[in-house]
Every structure is written in structure tokens, then in C-alpha cells.
């Protein structure tokens, strides 16, 4: 990932990686089918979606209130709460805890927010080892990459590549079969679990009513990370709240079905603060780090606010025809696919660098259809494009083209003249009813596809004859 590359360049690079494309397609197919089956297993899926959406909308509309309540409850449970406006604040809070505890090693279970703020790197800079314990995240970490999928961070890697990474780590060859790989990871991670001073997790949902943090995992690592080390730090995006345990139950139906196609993940961990007197396990300290990092920009803007309803299930990635071709890294940051294209330009607040993401979509709306909380992602993508254009970021040629579009298509008379003239001019390039591959401006199309020639007579020219045809007349002259 070169820092200043464009979405288009990154996409092109991804397209050249045959292995990546096959791996992404196979996995997304599997997840897609799984989701479909899992949804069929729920009686009234559409109503469930509506409920999920209503819960998320209610929380986002009353976020101040729920943040306050959550904070109170966590404190009442004996935990500490840290509100962080920016990435640097998160880093400061976590590194201060680590320094105070004299921590040498940290274990982590999946947290997208910590990727946002590059927490691992910050910890390493102060000499603290941070090890990912989710298998996919562990692989990605060893490779020095970002996750390429929200719920399957390493779906772009095959067993051979994983074996190479593990062998390097082990200092001896690890065989590329599933058992050997899993055995190595398990052994290695167990050592890490036992020696860790701090456990850091993400947070799928925080329950305001009880002050709890809820994690959905399939490997059981979440449980270990939250209970073995003496300190547990949960890092959450500030929007990730549900009001009550009852609301959490709705999400428990929605999230795994939409994400992995499971009825429920293998583990659901609910943590409500540090160990209390008389309890036999749990950490001595519990910290909840609540992160804004650009989210209030989404919150304030009614055009994009709905993006905060997202429950990070990844369904929109699995159905996205663009994601399915290029995978996650081409999106350039932490969140790929349609939701990534919607939130990245706002979270990062940098149109020049991230403004091209929303253009990498066919607007097929498969994402909106798949989204369990019915975020109209394709509308949000279009709104982004409008914002980009309104900010004057569109290229000169495109601006000129759409000014011309407005003039020509803004009046039938002009349209008639212009299209007629264009047709005559373009005849120079017509071969066999199609345009020759090198028509100016069409290269992106004609590299892989033929483009039809303009018709010599437009429908409106045929209309006068057609109008006179009697109903039921067959195959009259009017056929262009």
C-alpha cells in the first residue's frame, strides 16, 4: 500500500493478483451463501432488520444520552472510562496504562478501531509487544499488513503463504496443512496469553443499561484476552452502543447471520467491569476507551449519519462486485468495501486523499440490499460523489463534459443537433456497427469491450412514421 496511490492504481494492482482474486471470490461466495441460508433460518428476517435498524437509529439520535449512561454504569461497575476525541488520545491513554503497569507484552483480540489509530505500532514504539490472538489478525500482523475484510482479516492469504509466515516466526519449517498451522498458532499464542500484562479487545456492542462490553468470536480468544491478563482495555467506536440486553439479543441474531452466516458465533463474551470481591477470575483493572476519531463528523451530517448504524458485519463487502474483484487492501485503509468507501473519507476528513473511494462502485445497490440495518449505502455513495464535485475536486475534463451534458441535454433541440453531429463525426471510427477500440475518451471501456456505434436515425427521427402505424401492424418500416 503506497501512501499516496489512488484507488484506481490500487485496484489495478489488485486485479493483477490472480491468487488474491480467486481467494476473495471463494470466501465471499461462501459467506454470501452462508448468509442467505442463515437468514432463511430466521422466521421473519425483514422484521428483524427493521428492529435492528430502529435500535441503531434510536441510539445514534440519542448518542449523548447513551454515552452518558454507559459511562455511569461502567464506572459503577468499577471500570474506568476514557473518552478519546482523536487517534492520538487513544494512543496516549493506552500507552499511559501500559507504562503505569510496567507492561512488557499485550495480547489483543480483534479490534478495528485499534487499527484505525495504529495502536500496535504505538505500543511497539514504547517497547511493548502487542500480539494479535485472532488467527486471521495474527496472520495479517505477521505479514505486516492491514486486514482485508472486516470479519475475515486474512482471507487474501492461502495456506502456503501462511505456512511461510509461521515458519519465519518459528525459525523452523511449519507444514502448510491446516492441523500444523493451527497447532503452531495455538502453541505460540498460548505462551503469549500466559505472559501478557494487558489484554486489549474491541467491542461489538456496549450495553448502556448494564455497562457491559460484548464480543462475538469464534476462536475463544476473546475470552482469554478479557480474563487472563490483570488489565483489560476495551476499545470501542463511540457509536457502538445498544440500550439494553434485549436490544443486544436482536443484534445477536442479526450480526452473525449477516457476517459469517452463523446462527450464532461460537463464543459470545459479555464483560461487565473488573473482578469484584469474591469473584475468582477477571482482570484487576477494566478500562473502556470510547473513540470518536472522526465519528462526530458523520453524526453531524444528516447526509451520512446513517453510516453510524453499521454493525460491522461485512455483508456489504461480500456482495459488492467491486470488492469481489479487488479485495480489501485496494481501499487503502482499515475499512474496505461499500461501508469503507462511505466512512473513510469522513473519518479521515481528507477529500484529496480519500475522495475517490466512493467512485469505485457500480451503484448496483447490492450492499444496501444486504445490509442488516438497511443503510442505503448506494445513496450515501452518490451523496459522497456530489460532495466531492461540489468541493471542486472533479477533474477538468469531467467538469467540462458535464457542463456540455447540461447544455446539450437541457433542450431537445440542442440535443438533436449535437447527437446528430456526433454520430456523423464518429462514423470515422465505426467498424462493423461498433466503434473502433481507440475512440478518444472511451479507452476504459474499449480496452475490454466493444462499444456500439450511434444509430444513424434516432428514435425521435423514426417516431413520425411509427406514430402512423396502426396497432398490431408488424415489422413496419420504422425499424431503424
Amino acid at each position, binding site marked *: 500500500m503506497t501512501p499516496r496511490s489512488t484507488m484506481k492504481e490500487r485496484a489495478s494492482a489488485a486485479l493483477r493478483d490472480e491468487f488474491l482474486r480467486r481467494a476473495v471470490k471463494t470466501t465471499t461466495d461462501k459467506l454470501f451463501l452462508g448468509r442467505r441460508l442463515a437468514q432463511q433460518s430466521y422466521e421473519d428476517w425483514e422484521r428483524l432488520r427493521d428492529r435492528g435498524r430502529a435500535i441503531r437509529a434510536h441510539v445514534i439520535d440519542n448518542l449523548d444520552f447513551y454515552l452518558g449512561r454507559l459511562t455511569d454504569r461502567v464506572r459503577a461497575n468499577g471500570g474506568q472510562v476514557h473518552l478519546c476525541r482523536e487517534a492520538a488520545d487513544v494512543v496516549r491513554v493506552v500507552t499511559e496504562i501500559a507504562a503505569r503497569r510496567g507492561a512488557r507484552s499485550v495480547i489483543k483480540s480483534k479490534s478495528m478501531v485499534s487499527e484505525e489509530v495504529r495502536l500496535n505500532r504505538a505500543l511497539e514504539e514504547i517497547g511493548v509487544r502487542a500480539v494479535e490472538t485472532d488467527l486471521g489478525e495474527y496472520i495479517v500482523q505477521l505479514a505486516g499488513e492491514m486486514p482485508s475484510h472486516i470479519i475475515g482479516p486474512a482471507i487474501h492469504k492461502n495456506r502456503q503463504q501462511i505456512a511461510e509466515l509461521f515458519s519465519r516466526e518459528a525459525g523452523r519449517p511449519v507444514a502448510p496443512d491446516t492441523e500444523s498451522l493451527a497447532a503452531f498458532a495455538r502453541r505460540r499464542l498460548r505462551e503469549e496469553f500466559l505472559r501478557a500484562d494487558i489484554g486489549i479487545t474491541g467491542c461489538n456492542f456496549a450495553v448502556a443499561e448494564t455497562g457491559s462490553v460484548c464480543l462475538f468470536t469464534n476462536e475463544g480468544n476473546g475470552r482469554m484476552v478479557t480474563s487472563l491478563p490483570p488489565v483489560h482495555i476495551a476499545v470501542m467506536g463511540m457509536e457502538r452502543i445498544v440500550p439494553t440486553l434485549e436490544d443486544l439479543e436482536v443484534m445477536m441474531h442479526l450480526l452473525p447471520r449477516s457476517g459469517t452466516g452463523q446462527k450464532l458465533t461460537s463464543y459470545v463474551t459479555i464483560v461487565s467491569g473488573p473482578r469484584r470481591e469474591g469473584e475468582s477470575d477477571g482482570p484487576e483493572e477494566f478500562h473502556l476507551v470510547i473513540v470518536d476519531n472522526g465519528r462526530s463528523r458523520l453524526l453531524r451530517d444528516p447526509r451520512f449519519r446513517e453510516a453510524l448504524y453499521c454493525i460491522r458485519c461485512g455483508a456489504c463487502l461480500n456482495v459488492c462486485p467491486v470488492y469481489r474483484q479487488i479485495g480489501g487492501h485496494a481501499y487503502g485503509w482499515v475499512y474496505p468495501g461499500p461501508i469503507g468507501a462511505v466512512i473513510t473519507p469522513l473519518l479521515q476528513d481528507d477529500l484529496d486523499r480519500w475522495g475517490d473511494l466512493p467512485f469505485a462502485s*457500480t451503484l448496483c445497490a447490492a450492499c444496501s440490499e444486504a445490509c442488516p440495518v438497511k443503510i442505503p449505502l448506494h445513496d450515501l455513495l452518490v451523496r459522497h460523489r456530489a460532495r466531492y*464535485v461540489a468541493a471542486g475536486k472533479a477533474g477538468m475534463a469531467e467538469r467540462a463534459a458535464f457542463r456540455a451534458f*447540461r447544455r446539450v441535454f437541457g433542450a*431537445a433541440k440542442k440535443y438533436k443537433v449535437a447527437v446528430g453531429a456526433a*454520430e456523423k463525426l464518429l462514423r470515422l471510427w465505426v467498424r462493423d456497427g461498433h466503434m473502433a477500440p481507440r475512440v478518444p475518451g472511451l479507452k*476504459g471501456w474499449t480496452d*475490454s469491450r466493444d462499444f456500439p456505434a450511434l444509430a444513424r436515425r434516432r428514435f425521435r427521427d423514426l417516431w413520425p412514421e411509427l406514430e402512423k402505424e396502426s396497432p398490431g401492424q408488424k415489422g413496419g418500416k420504422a425499424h431503424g
Partner: protein
Amino acid sequence: MTSTYPAPFILSNIYDKIKSTLQREEWEAARGTAVLRVSLFVTCLVDACFPEVGVSAVRLLRRLGVEVDFPPEQTCCGQPAFNAGFHREAGAVAQVWLESFADSDYIVTPSGSCAGMIRHGYGELWAGTSPVGSLAKELSEKTYELSQFLVEILGVRDLGARFPAKAVYHPSCHATRLLGIGDAPLILLRRVRGLELVDLPFAEECCGFGGTFSVKFGEVSGAIATDKARNVMGTGADVLVGTDMGCLMNIGGRLRRLGSPIRVLHLAQLLEEGLA
């Protein structure tokens, strides 16, 4: 997919509305039923590149006793600019569209994507409360994609067409997702004599067109189109049929480049040819 517009209710409404003019009364007398007046929105793509699709649509509608007119001031719904983020330009062109169709009873178009723009996109361009927004809303509720109009409003299922061929149908994203035409095209196709309809794997996946996306991200677009074309070719069909020339031009363009002889037809063309 159930229609939000129960046909009998609309029919009787329209019947009351139009029976005043003498010519129409004659029509009614001759046919014994109400005559629907439809304005054809041919779309700029069909107008300029595929006029034969518009011709077929008109003939089909007429055969079913529908009176068709062609508002001459129409150009484009504005979608190309809208999807590209040029909303001022889109709004200007869309206003021309609104003026062109302001007097129409029904607006029928051989494109689910353009109908989707009108039904869905106009709501994004203008809030329903502004004067132009309320006109847009009113007109959008009268706008139908062709097969949707045939099935939902006319209640047609079997046109009596005959078309001996093996065909695959590509459900276009905007027709199904934005407009919600459901199975309307399939309802019509399944009753075409001699037509063997085969399943298209990953049918609901986009063809990769996406308007300016197809040029801006030409490589990605081409890669998606390749998958679609391969899936079409894998069925062994000799005809590919759909409701949107944008998608068909894209898949067809890729098929042609790959040297495939598969015929690419708009639903209106297939049905009309099957009736000839």
C-alpha cells in the same frame, strides 16, 4: 413482489379521467374497455444507440390496446450526471424531463435504471416538499419500467409470443433493487412458446456497467463484465435478454470481444419479434 397500485382501481380511475374525449370513446366502443394513455420515455441511450428497442416497445404497447405518445421535448432523466455527483447538472436536465412529462397519465420506459432514477433518484435531488419536488414525486409515481407496466398495470402475463431459442435473463440491478420490478420480466418470458429459459449463475450480481464507472474504473468494470459474460456463455444459451440497454451494451460488448455469437436482446425486442 406485490404491486402497490392495484390494477382495477387505477383502470377505473383512468377510465373516468379519459372517457371525455370523443376519439377515446370511439376506441372504447371498439374495444369494449378503457384505453390507457402512455407516454413513452425512450431514454437517451435507446434514442441514440438502440432506437429499435423503442420501436418494439411502442408496438408491444399498441398491440395491447394502449395509446402511446412520444413527448418530443424529452432527452434524458439526468442519471449520468446524478450518479457522477454533478447534481446541479442532473437537476437541470431532470427539470426538462419533468416538463416533458408533466401532462402524462402514465410514463413507460424500456429501462429499469432510468425508471429507478425517476422513482428513487429524484427524491434524492429534491425534497418532496419543494414545488419541483412534489411534481417529481407525482410523476415518479406514474413511471414504470416496460415489463413492470405490462404485468402490474395491464395485468398481462401471456403475450402469445413465440420465440424458439435457449435464453438467459440478466436481472438488472436498478430494475430489481431500486425499482423493485421483481419477476415481471420472467413472468412474461416464461410464457413465450418455444423459449427455453436457463438459469444464469450469479444472475443477481451486477454486470459492472455503472455509468461513468465503466470508463473511470475501466479495468475493474471490465473484470466484472468478464465474469458476467463467462457465466452467460457457460449456460450454452443463444440469447441474452434483459430490461436495460446499459447493462446489455456492457455484457454484449464483452461477449462480442470474446467472440461469442450470443444474440443480445432487450425484452421488448424479444417479445415483439416473437409476435411478428
